[in-house]
């Protein structure tokens, strides 16, 4: 985090940034703050403290649908059921039968988990979160032993995971459609209601956004949740104007200059090498105007964050922002991404529109990276720590797989380094990056800690395959995982499991001691 960012962002967020930064740097601090975060979750999570939300919590927590928490127990319950199906059982569906989803499946999932609900409620408000986590954990393990062959499991999970074609609070079923959860009208209405407030309730938005943001509301939601836009709508236009102007002024000061010192020249060279190979599988980014935007953003970010400078892979991290902020101009309320970015000709946009999106992308990148700058400083201590924690976590969850990997001499750092460095963006199709981003952005200051759980859930998708492989096979497999056919459902399964595990392990931090 650069000192000038501190100066410009003003008091609160500066302090926040400092604490985030410190958290990353000091081990004792990390542990302490993690605890704080877990307390925070306990307070903020649906079942943690809100009276009467016990059942929803059981399923809802497990399935990671925190989003519905504030909307009442009945709805919460319904959501929870649906998602438990997606979260726990959905894992079976990965890589197979993605189109199996049926209403019957969704119904099955809901019915099964409905049994869990009432008993969970009986545990009362206080034990809600913990009971939820434990039950979820148990059900996961049970699933593991059974091999997960429940009827409708694979198909139902898909629908359940999206949470739409399930019983609504009033008992009517949503029509079976192929629409994504983020597209549902009721969800959209909830977002709009929050966004229409004079002062947006960021915590409520966070909870809702965690499970995916409707495409057309993504830009504003990301910007609010990252703290780029203020919650007060009256101040938004002025701030946006000021930040965009600030960025515009930086360009001539830092970028459009003839003489550079050797270090800056090296930085520019590095950026220039990486820009043409940024998301090369997405033609959108190959457009000359986008390439220029990328170059400016990355170079400026590096220059203004001298503790790390530009590091390869940060070029990947800016792509969701550029795509979403520019996408606003191409998608007229429809699905921006993953609906496809074909025909998005940046040349057809006004220069001002491109510059505005570029500036927004720059500032949002700053905000996203503020919390993880130690991923990119010398020797990348943040990544090393995350990988260490991941190893410990995976050992706790799936000891046999971990033992097998260790016996084969496979070092976690070898294959997870890129995962952490690029926040998993390289491991999934680009269209899913924005969905990952929804959750990361919603996690806010806890994103770094949550990432460990996401990575564990991602890795363990392949646990059965890995156990049958030797060292070489594992390395080659993990370098290029078969995620090409993944959709939102698979990503959401990973996120749900991550949420569930965090809920479990946050109660027992000593399992993951940093040593």
């Amino acid at each position, binding site marked *: 985090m650069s000192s000038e960012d501190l100066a410009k962002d003003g008091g609160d967020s500066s302090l926040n940034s400092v604490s985030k930064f410190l958290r990353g740097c000091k081990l004792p601090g990390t542990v302490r703050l993690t605890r704080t975060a877990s307390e925070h979750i306990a307070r903020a999570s649906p079942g943690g403290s809100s009276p009467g939300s016990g059942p929803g919590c059981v399923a809802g927590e497990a399935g990671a649908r925190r989003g519905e928490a504030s909307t009442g127990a009945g709805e919460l319950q319904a959501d929870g059921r649906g998602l438990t199906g997606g979260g726990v059982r959905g894992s079976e569906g990965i890589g197979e039968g993605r189109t199996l989803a049926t209403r019957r499946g969704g119904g099955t999932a809901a019915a099964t988990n409905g049994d869990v609900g009432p008993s969970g409620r009986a545990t009362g408000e206080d034990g809600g979160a913990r009971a939820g986590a434990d039950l979820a954990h148990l059900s996961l393990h049970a699933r593991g032993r059974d091999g997960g062959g429940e009827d409708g499991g694979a198909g139902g999970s898909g629908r359940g995971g999206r949470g739409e074609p399930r019983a609504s609070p009033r008992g009517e079923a949503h029509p079976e459609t192929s629409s994504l959860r983020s597209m549902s009208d009721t969800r959209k209405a909830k977002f709009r209601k929050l966004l229409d407030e004079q002062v947006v309730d960021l915590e409520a938005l966070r909870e809702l956004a965690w499970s995916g943001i409707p495409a057309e509301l993504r830009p504003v939601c990301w910007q609010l949740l990252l703290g780029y836009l203020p919650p007060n709508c009256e101040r938004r236009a002025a701030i946006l104007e000021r930040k965009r102007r600030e960025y515009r002024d930086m360009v001539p000061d830092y970028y459009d200059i003839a003489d550079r010192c050797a270090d800056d020249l090296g930085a520019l060279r590095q950026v220039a090498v*990486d820009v043409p*190979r940024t998301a*090369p599988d997405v033609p959108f980014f190959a457009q000359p105007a986008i390439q220029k935007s990328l170059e400016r953003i990355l170079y400026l970010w590096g220059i203004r964050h001298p503790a790390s400078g530009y590091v390869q892979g940060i070029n990947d991290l800016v792509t969701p922002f550029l795509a979403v902020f520019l996408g606003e101009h191409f998608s007229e309320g429809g699905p921006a991404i993953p609906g496809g970015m074909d025909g998005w000709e940046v040349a057809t946009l006004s220069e001002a529109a491109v510059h505005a999106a570029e500036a927004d992308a720059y500032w949002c990148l700053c905000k996203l990276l503020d919390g993880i700058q130690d991923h990119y400083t010398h*020797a*990348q201590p943040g990544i090393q720590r995350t990988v260490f924690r991941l190893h410990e976590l995976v050992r706790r969850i799936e000891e046999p797989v971990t033992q097998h990997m260790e016996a084969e001499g496979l070092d976690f750092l070898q294959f997870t380094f890129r995962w952490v460095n690029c926040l998993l963006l390289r491991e999934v199709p680009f269209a899913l990056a924005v969905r990952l981003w929804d959750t990361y952005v919603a996690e806010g200051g806890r994103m770094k800690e949550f990432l460990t759980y996401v990575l564990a859930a991602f890795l363990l998708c392949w646990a059965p395959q890995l156990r049958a492989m030797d060292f070489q096979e594992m390395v080659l497999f993990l370098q290029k995982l078969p995620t090409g056919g993944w959709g939102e459902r698979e990503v959401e399964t990973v996120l749900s499991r991550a949420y569930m595990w965090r809920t479990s392990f946050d109660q027992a931090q000593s399992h993951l001691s940093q040593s």
Partner: protein
Amino acid sequence: MSRGLSHHKPDDDYDYLFKVVLIGDSGVGKSNLLSRFTRNEFCLESKSTIGVEFATRSIQVDGKTIKAQIWDTAGQERYRAITSAYYRGAVGALLVYDITKQVTFENVERWLKELRDHADSNIVIMLVGNKSDLRHLRSVPTDDAQAFCEKEGLSFIETSALESTNVEMAFQKILTEIYHIVSKKALAAEDSAPRPGEGTKIVVTEPTSETEKKSSCCGN
């Protein structure tokens, strides 16, 4: 120096396993040299390597099957702390620069220092001038690189991963060189301390059928 391991698995038979690292500035084409050698693939706009990536291929040298385990590393300086850990145990290094970018050649000295600091002292190093297809953009004369290599005692070759020129040759050459050193050492060790019952260094019968099998499965 780690040596070739004699290791036998029915589907993966080899006489020696050599670990080789690919190093050099970012964007010089390390990953494409690797994919050309191991999979006969080239991708003009491949993503940057983050951390390390790995691939293998077996070749025949003097009737022996040599399995090369090649570690491709990220080029950016920031990654050195991570990537240099992979130098340990490497018996060979391909130090790659881009013949169209003078600065990548100038940085070769820094890379040599990296190897001196982190790799085994007797690692075999080959300097590789890549992108030789971009003749019109050349900024590093072959003679300069050649002279530098003579001074430093390195082998040298110019390649084009895009046109598939000399890629096979580069790997063949460095692996052969490593093989000769390793086998000479083994012989020397044997001469100084002969042990009864272990004197069968020259095996001529066994590998002949394998030679054909291997060369067909190596792609290209």
